Protein backbone atom coordinates (compact mmCIF):
# COMPACT_ATOMS: atom_id res chain seq x y z
CA UNK A 1 0.00 0.00 0.00
CA UNK A 2 1.08 3.57 -0.44
CA UNK A 3 0.24 6.79 1.31
CA UNK A 4 -2.88 8.43 -0.04
CA UNK A 5 -2.28 11.10 -2.65
CA UNK A 6 -5.64 12.78 -3.00
CA UNK A 7 -5.47 13.36 -6.75
CA UNK A 8 -4.40 9.81 -7.56
CA UNK A 9 -6.94 8.21 -5.24
CA UNK A 10 -9.70 10.42 -6.63
CA UNK A 11 -9.05 9.00 -10.11
CA UNK A 12 -9.44 5.47 -8.76
CA UNK A 13 -12.66 6.32 -6.89
CA UNK A 14 -14.12 7.86 -10.04
CA UNK A 15 -13.39 4.70 -12.00
CA UNK A 16 -15.67 2.60 -9.75
CA UNK A 17 -18.60 5.05 -9.79
CA UNK A 18 -21.95 4.18 -11.37
CA UNK A 19 -21.50 0.44 -11.42
CA UNK A 20 -22.32 -2.38 -9.02
CA UNK A 21 -19.41 -2.97 -6.66
CA UNK A 22 -18.84 -5.18 -3.61
CA UNK A 23 -18.10 -3.29 -0.42
CA UNK A 24 -15.93 -4.14 2.60
CA UNK A 25 -16.16 -1.60 5.42
CA UNK A 26 -14.61 -2.10 8.83
CA UNK A 27 -13.78 -0.06 11.87
CA UNK A 28 -12.03 -1.62 14.84
CA UNK A 29 -10.25 -0.99 18.13
CA UNK A 30 -9.24 -4.64 18.33
CA UNK A 31 -10.75 -7.32 20.53
CA UNK A 32 -8.24 -6.73 23.32
CA UNK A 33 -8.96 -3.01 23.87
CA UNK A 34 -10.98 -3.59 27.04
CA UNK A 35 -8.49 -6.22 28.28
CA UNK A 36 -5.64 -3.72 28.23
CA UNK A 37 -7.74 -0.74 29.33
CA UNK A 38 -10.70 -1.83 31.41
CA UNK A 39 -12.58 1.47 31.13
CA UNK A 40 -12.44 1.44 27.34
CA UNK A 41 -15.74 1.35 25.48
CA UNK A 42 -15.02 -0.94 22.55
CA UNK A 43 -17.11 -0.31 19.46
CA UNK A 44 -16.67 -1.22 15.84
CA UNK A 45 -18.57 -2.29 12.75
CA UNK A 46 -17.96 -4.70 9.89
CA UNK A 47 -19.70 -5.28 6.59
CA UNK A 48 -18.39 -7.43 3.73
CA UNK A 49 -19.61 -8.21 0.24
CA UNK A 50 -22.66 -6.01 0.20
CA UNK A 51 -23.31 -4.65 -3.30
CA UNK A 52 -23.59 -0.88 -3.70
CA UNK A 53 -23.64 1.49 -6.65
CA UNK A 54 -22.34 4.97 -5.88
CA UNK A 55 -22.82 8.01 -8.05
CA UNK A 56 -20.10 10.10 -6.48
CA UNK A 57 -16.99 9.14 -4.52
CA UNK A 58 -14.77 11.72 -2.84
CA UNK A 59 -11.58 11.76 -0.83
CA UNK A 60 -11.23 14.84 1.33
CA UNK A 61 -8.84 16.47 3.79
CA UNK A 62 -5.25 16.05 4.94
CA UNK A 63 -4.09 12.62 6.11
CA UNK A 64 -5.78 10.87 7.78
CA UNK A 65 -8.38 11.44 5.05
CA UNK A 66 -12.12 11.02 4.89
CA UNK A 67 -13.67 9.12 2.01
CA UNK A 68 -17.39 9.32 1.21
CA UNK A 69 -19.54 7.52 -1.34
CA UNK A 70 -22.91 9.02 -2.26
CA UNK A 71 -25.57 6.41 -3.11
CA UNK A 72 -28.95 7.01 -4.76
CA UNK A 73 -30.61 6.51 -1.36
CA UNK A 74 -27.84 6.94 1.18
CA UNK A 75 -24.18 7.19 2.05
CA UNK A 76 -21.06 5.24 2.90
CA UNK A 77 -18.11 6.97 4.51
CA UNK A 78 -14.93 6.20 6.39
CA UNK A 79 -12.55 8.45 8.29
CA UNK A 80 -8.93 7.86 9.21
CA UNK A 81 -7.79 6.65 5.80
CA UNK A 82 -3.99 6.78 5.39
CA UNK A 83 -3.06 4.20 2.71
CA UNK A 84 -4.45 2.78 -0.49
CA UNK A 85 -3.68 0.19 -3.15
CA UNK A 86 -5.23 -0.99 -6.38
CA UNK A 87 -4.33 -4.66 -5.90
CA UNK A 88 -3.38 -7.24 -8.53
CA UNK A 89 -7.05 -8.22 -8.85
CA UNK A 90 -8.08 -4.65 -9.59
CA UNK A 91 -9.71 -4.09 -6.20
CA UNK A 92 -9.44 -0.69 -4.55
CA UNK A 93 -8.26 -1.19 -0.97
CA UNK A 94 -8.22 1.79 1.40
CA UNK A 95 -7.07 1.53 5.00
CA UNK A 96 -6.19 3.64 7.99
CA UNK A 97 -3.19 2.48 10.03
CA UNK A 98 -2.30 4.08 13.35
CA UNK A 99 1.24 5.05 14.37
CA UNK A 100 1.97 1.57 15.72
CA UNK A 101 0.99 -0.10 12.42
CA UNK A 102 -2.42 -1.36 13.51
CA UNK A 103 -5.36 -1.17 11.15
CA UNK A 104 -8.17 1.02 12.52
CA UNK A 105 -10.42 1.34 9.48
CA UNK A 106 -10.75 -0.26 6.04
CA UNK A 107 -12.90 0.65 3.05
CA UNK A 108 -12.59 -1.62 0.01
CA UNK A 109 -14.47 -1.85 -3.26
CA UNK A 110 -14.30 -4.52 -5.91
CA UNK A 111 -16.19 -5.57 -9.03
CA UNK A 112 -15.97 -9.20 -7.89
CA UNK A 113 -16.84 -10.52 -4.44
CA UNK A 114 -14.14 -10.55 -1.76
CA UNK A 115 -13.31 -13.99 -0.36
CA UNK A 116 -15.59 -15.42 2.38
Amino acid at each position, binding site marked *: *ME*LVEVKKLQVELDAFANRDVYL*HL*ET*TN*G*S*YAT*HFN*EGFFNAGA*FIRNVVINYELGKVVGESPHRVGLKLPHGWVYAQGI*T*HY*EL*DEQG*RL*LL*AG*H*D*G*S*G*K*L*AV*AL*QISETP*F*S*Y
Partner: protein
Amino acid sequence: MTIPKERHVLVVFPHPDDEAFGVSGTISTHIKQGTPVTYACLTLGEMGRNLGNPPFATRESLPQIRKKELIASAEAMGLTDLRMMGLRDKTVEFEDDEKMVGMMADLITELNPSLVITFYPNLSVHPDHEATARAVVRAVRRMEDRPKLHCVAFANNTLDVLGNPDVVYDISPVRDQKMGAMKAHISQTAWMLEEMEHKLAQGDTETENWLTKERFYNYRWDQDFEESF
Protein backbone atom coordinates in the same frame (compact mmCIF):
# COMPACT_ATOMS: atom_id res chain seq x y z
CA MET B 1 5.19 -31.34 36.76
CA THR B 2 6.24 -33.73 33.99
CA ILE B 3 3.97 -34.08 30.99
CA PRO B 4 2.27 -37.48 31.01
CA LYS B 5 2.16 -39.62 27.89
CA GLU B 6 -1.24 -39.31 26.20
CA ARG B 7 -3.04 -41.45 23.63
CA HIS B 8 -3.77 -38.45 21.41
CA VAL B 9 -3.91 -34.70 22.08
CA LEU B 10 -6.41 -32.41 20.35
CA VAL B 11 -5.71 -28.68 20.49
CA VAL B 12 -8.48 -26.28 19.41
CA PHE B 13 -7.93 -22.53 19.06
CA PRO B 14 -9.46 -19.96 16.71
CA HIS B 15 -6.40 -17.99 15.54
CA PRO B 16 -3.00 -18.77 14.07
CA ASP B 17 -0.62 -17.76 16.93
CA ASP B 18 -3.04 -18.70 19.76
CA GLU B 19 -1.08 -21.95 20.02
CA ALA B 20 2.30 -20.25 20.08
CA PHE B 21 2.14 -18.17 23.27
CA GLY B 22 0.72 -20.51 25.85
CA VAL B 23 0.80 -24.02 24.46
CA SER B 24 3.57 -24.56 21.89
CA GLY B 25 5.97 -25.93 24.53
CA THR B 26 3.39 -28.46 25.67
CA ILE B 27 2.56 -29.44 22.08
CA SER B 28 6.26 -29.84 21.25
CA THR B 29 6.80 -32.00 24.33
CA HIS B 30 3.90 -34.31 23.46
CA ILE B 31 5.27 -34.70 19.95
CA LYS B 32 8.77 -35.40 21.29
CA GLN B 33 7.26 -38.09 23.51
CA GLY B 34 5.67 -39.70 20.48
CA THR B 35 2.09 -38.65 21.23
CA PRO B 36 0.09 -37.74 18.14
CA VAL B 37 -1.14 -34.14 18.31
CA THR B 38 -3.84 -32.55 16.15
CA TYR B 39 -4.20 -28.78 16.03
CA ALA B 40 -7.57 -27.53 14.75
CA CYS B 41 -7.26 -23.82 14.00
CA LEU B 42 -10.68 -22.38 13.28
CA THR B 43 -9.76 -19.23 11.31
CA LEU B 44 -6.77 -17.73 9.52
CA GLY B 45 -6.76 -14.58 11.65
CA GLU B 46 -8.18 -12.67 8.69
CA MET B 47 -9.00 -9.65 10.87
CA GLY B 48 -5.56 -9.23 12.42
CA ARG B 49 -4.76 -5.56 13.00
CA ASN B 50 -0.97 -5.71 12.74
CA LEU B 51 -0.45 -4.70 9.13
CA GLY B 52 2.44 -2.30 9.73
CA ASN B 53 2.98 1.36 9.00
CA PRO B 54 4.16 1.44 6.29
CA PRO B 55 1.93 -1.61 5.70
CA PHE B 56 3.49 -4.99 4.78
CA ALA B 57 0.08 -6.49 3.90
CA THR B 58 -3.53 -5.61 3.18
CA ARG B 59 -6.75 -6.89 4.70
CA GLU B 60 -7.00 -9.17 1.63
CA SER B 61 -3.42 -10.47 1.56
CA LEU B 62 -3.12 -11.08 5.33
CA PRO B 63 -4.88 -14.49 5.43
CA GLN B 64 -2.39 -16.07 3.01
CA ILE B 65 0.52 -14.67 5.02
CA ARG B 66 -0.94 -16.00 8.26
CA LYS B 67 -1.67 -19.38 6.70
CA LYS B 68 2.02 -19.74 5.80
CA GLU B 69 2.98 -18.65 9.30
CA LEU B 70 0.63 -21.22 10.81
CA ILE B 71 2.20 -23.98 8.71
CA ALA B 72 5.67 -22.76 9.73
CA SER B 73 4.63 -22.79 13.41
CA ALA B 74 3.39 -26.37 13.06
CA GLU B 75 6.73 -27.31 11.50
CA ALA B 76 8.62 -25.63 14.35
CA MET B 77 6.69 -27.76 16.85
CA GLY B 78 7.02 -30.92 14.75
CA LEU B 79 3.23 -31.06 14.36
CA THR B 80 2.00 -32.92 11.29
CA ASP B 81 -1.79 -32.95 11.73
CA LEU B 82 -2.84 -29.33 11.25
CA ARG B 83 -6.51 -28.72 10.44
CA MET B 84 -7.62 -25.36 9.07
CA MET B 85 -11.35 -25.23 9.75
CA GLY B 86 -12.28 -22.41 7.37
CA LEU B 87 -14.19 -20.01 9.63
CA ARG B 88 -13.65 -16.26 9.53
CA ASP B 89 -11.87 -14.37 12.28
CA LYS B 90 -14.21 -12.51 14.66
CA THR B 91 -17.32 -14.34 13.43
CA VAL B 92 -17.02 -17.59 15.43
CA GLU B 93 -19.51 -16.48 18.11
CA PHE B 94 -22.09 -15.68 15.41
CA GLU B 95 -22.00 -19.17 13.87
CA ASP B 96 -24.82 -21.53 14.80
CA ASP B 97 -23.97 -22.87 18.28
CA GLU B 98 -25.07 -26.41 17.49
CA LYS B 99 -22.98 -26.41 14.31
CA MET B 100 -19.94 -25.43 16.38
CA VAL B 101 -20.56 -28.21 18.89
CA GLY B 102 -20.90 -30.61 15.96
CA MET B 103 -17.56 -29.50 14.52
CA MET B 104 -15.85 -30.22 17.83
CA ALA B 105 -17.73 -33.48 18.37
CA ASP B 106 -16.66 -34.69 14.91
CA LEU B 107 -13.00 -33.99 15.71
CA ILE B 108 -13.23 -35.75 19.08
CA THR B 109 -15.05 -38.73 17.63
CA GLU B 110 -12.54 -39.09 14.80
CA LEU B 111 -9.39 -38.66 16.90
CA ASN B 112 -10.45 -40.16 20.26
CA PRO B 113 -8.09 -37.89 22.21
CA SER B 114 -7.22 -38.58 25.84
CA LEU B 115 -6.57 -34.83 26.29
CA VAL B 116 -8.22 -31.79 24.72
CA ILE B 117 -6.66 -28.33 25.07
CA THR B 118 -8.59 -25.09 24.46
CA PHE B 119 -9.46 -21.83 26.23
CA TYR B 120 -11.37 -21.55 29.53
CA PRO B 121 -14.94 -20.28 29.04
CA ASN B 122 -15.56 -16.76 30.37
CA LEU B 123 -11.85 -16.22 31.05
CA SER B 124 -10.29 -15.98 27.62
CA VAL B 125 -10.94 -12.35 26.62
CA HIS B 126 -11.44 -12.51 22.83
CA PRO B 127 -14.99 -13.34 21.60
CA ASP B 128 -13.57 -16.01 19.25
CA HIS B 129 -11.69 -17.59 22.16
CA GLU B 130 -14.88 -17.65 24.22
CA ALA B 131 -16.95 -19.13 21.39
CA THR B 132 -14.30 -21.81 20.80
CA ALA B 133 -14.17 -22.64 24.51
CA ARG B 134 -17.96 -22.94 24.74
CA ALA B 135 -18.16 -25.24 21.73
CA VAL B 136 -15.38 -27.53 22.99
CA VAL B 137 -16.77 -27.72 26.55
CA ARG B 138 -20.25 -28.51 25.21
CA ALA B 139 -18.96 -31.24 22.93
CA VAL B 140 -16.90 -32.83 25.71
CA ARG B 141 -19.78 -32.51 28.19
CA ARG B 142 -21.90 -34.74 25.94
CA MET B 143 -19.27 -37.50 25.81
CA GLU B 144 -19.90 -40.60 27.85
CA ASP B 145 -16.19 -41.15 28.40
CA ARG B 146 -14.85 -37.62 28.66
CA PRO B 147 -11.23 -36.88 27.74
CA LYS B 148 -9.23 -34.62 30.07
CA LEU B 149 -9.87 -30.98 29.28
CA HIS B 150 -7.05 -28.50 29.91
CA CYS B 151 -7.92 -24.83 29.44
CA VAL B 152 -5.90 -21.66 29.00
CA ALA B 153 -7.25 -18.67 30.95
CA PHE B 154 -5.80 -15.18 30.84
CA ALA B 155 -8.59 -12.69 31.61
CA ASN B 156 -7.57 -10.07 34.16
CA ASN B 157 -9.81 -11.68 36.82
CA THR B 158 -8.56 -15.25 36.28
CA LEU B 159 -6.79 -15.53 39.65
CA ASP B 160 -9.88 -14.27 41.49
CA VAL B 161 -12.14 -16.80 39.77
CA LEU B 162 -9.97 -19.92 39.49
CA GLY B 163 -6.97 -19.32 41.72
CA ASN B 164 -3.60 -20.63 40.56
CA PRO B 165 -3.41 -23.02 37.60
CA ASP B 166 -3.51 -26.66 38.67
CA VAL B 167 -1.42 -27.86 35.73
CA VAL B 168 2.02 -26.27 35.34
CA TYR B 169 4.53 -27.81 32.97
CA ASP B 170 8.25 -27.19 32.73
CA ILE B 171 8.80 -26.74 29.02
CA SER B 172 12.43 -25.54 29.17
CA PRO B 173 13.70 -28.62 27.24
CA VAL B 174 11.66 -27.44 24.21
CA ARG B 175 12.40 -23.75 24.58
CA ASP B 176 13.80 -23.61 21.04
CA GLN B 177 10.62 -25.09 19.57
CA LYS B 178 8.52 -22.56 21.51
CA MET B 179 10.66 -19.67 20.25
CA GLY B 180 10.38 -21.18 16.77
CA ALA B 181 6.58 -21.24 16.96
CA MET B 182 6.45 -17.64 18.15
CA LYS B 183 8.89 -16.48 15.51
CA ALA B 184 6.87 -18.30 12.84
CA HIS B 185 4.02 -15.84 13.45
CA ILE B 186 6.33 -12.92 12.82
CA SER B 187 3.67 -10.68 11.22
CA GLN B 188 1.82 -10.65 14.55
CA THR B 189 4.63 -11.13 17.06
CA ALA B 190 7.53 -8.98 15.80
CA TRP B 191 7.09 -6.12 18.29
CA MET B 192 6.45 -8.52 21.16
CA LEU B 193 9.51 -10.62 20.41
CA GLU B 194 11.67 -7.51 20.25
CA GLU B 195 10.44 -6.44 23.69
CA MET B 196 10.90 -9.96 25.00
CA GLU B 197 14.50 -10.24 23.84
CA HIS B 198 15.23 -6.90 25.44
CA LYS B 199 13.73 -8.08 28.75
CA LEU B 200 15.54 -11.42 28.61
CA ALA B 201 18.84 -9.62 28.05
CA GLN B 202 18.12 -7.65 31.23
CA GLY B 203 17.49 -10.90 33.13
CA ASP B 204 13.75 -10.33 33.61
CA THR B 205 12.50 -13.38 35.52
CA GLU B 206 8.86 -13.05 34.48
CA THR B 207 9.78 -13.27 30.79
CA GLU B 208 12.18 -16.14 31.47
CA ASN B 209 9.39 -17.89 33.40
CA TRP B 210 7.08 -17.49 30.42
CA LEU B 211 9.53 -19.35 28.20
CA THR B 212 10.01 -22.19 30.64
CA LYS B 213 6.52 -22.78 32.09
CA GLU B 214 3.07 -23.34 30.58
CA ARG B 215 -0.06 -23.23 32.71
CA PHE B 216 -3.49 -24.80 32.37
CA TYR B 217 -6.62 -25.31 34.39
CA ASN B 218 -8.45 -28.62 34.41
CA TYR B 219 -11.97 -27.69 33.39
CA ARG B 220 -14.14 -27.71 36.52
CA TRP B 221 -17.18 -29.77 35.65
CA ASP B 222 -18.54 -29.17 39.14
CA GLN B 223 -18.59 -25.43 38.36
CA ASP B 224 -19.74 -25.76 34.75
CA PHE B 225 -20.20 -22.41 32.95
CA GLU B 226 -23.82 -23.34 32.07
CA GLU B 227 -26.28 -25.88 33.38
CA SER B 228 -26.96 -27.50 30.04
CA PHE B 229 -26.91 -26.89 26.32
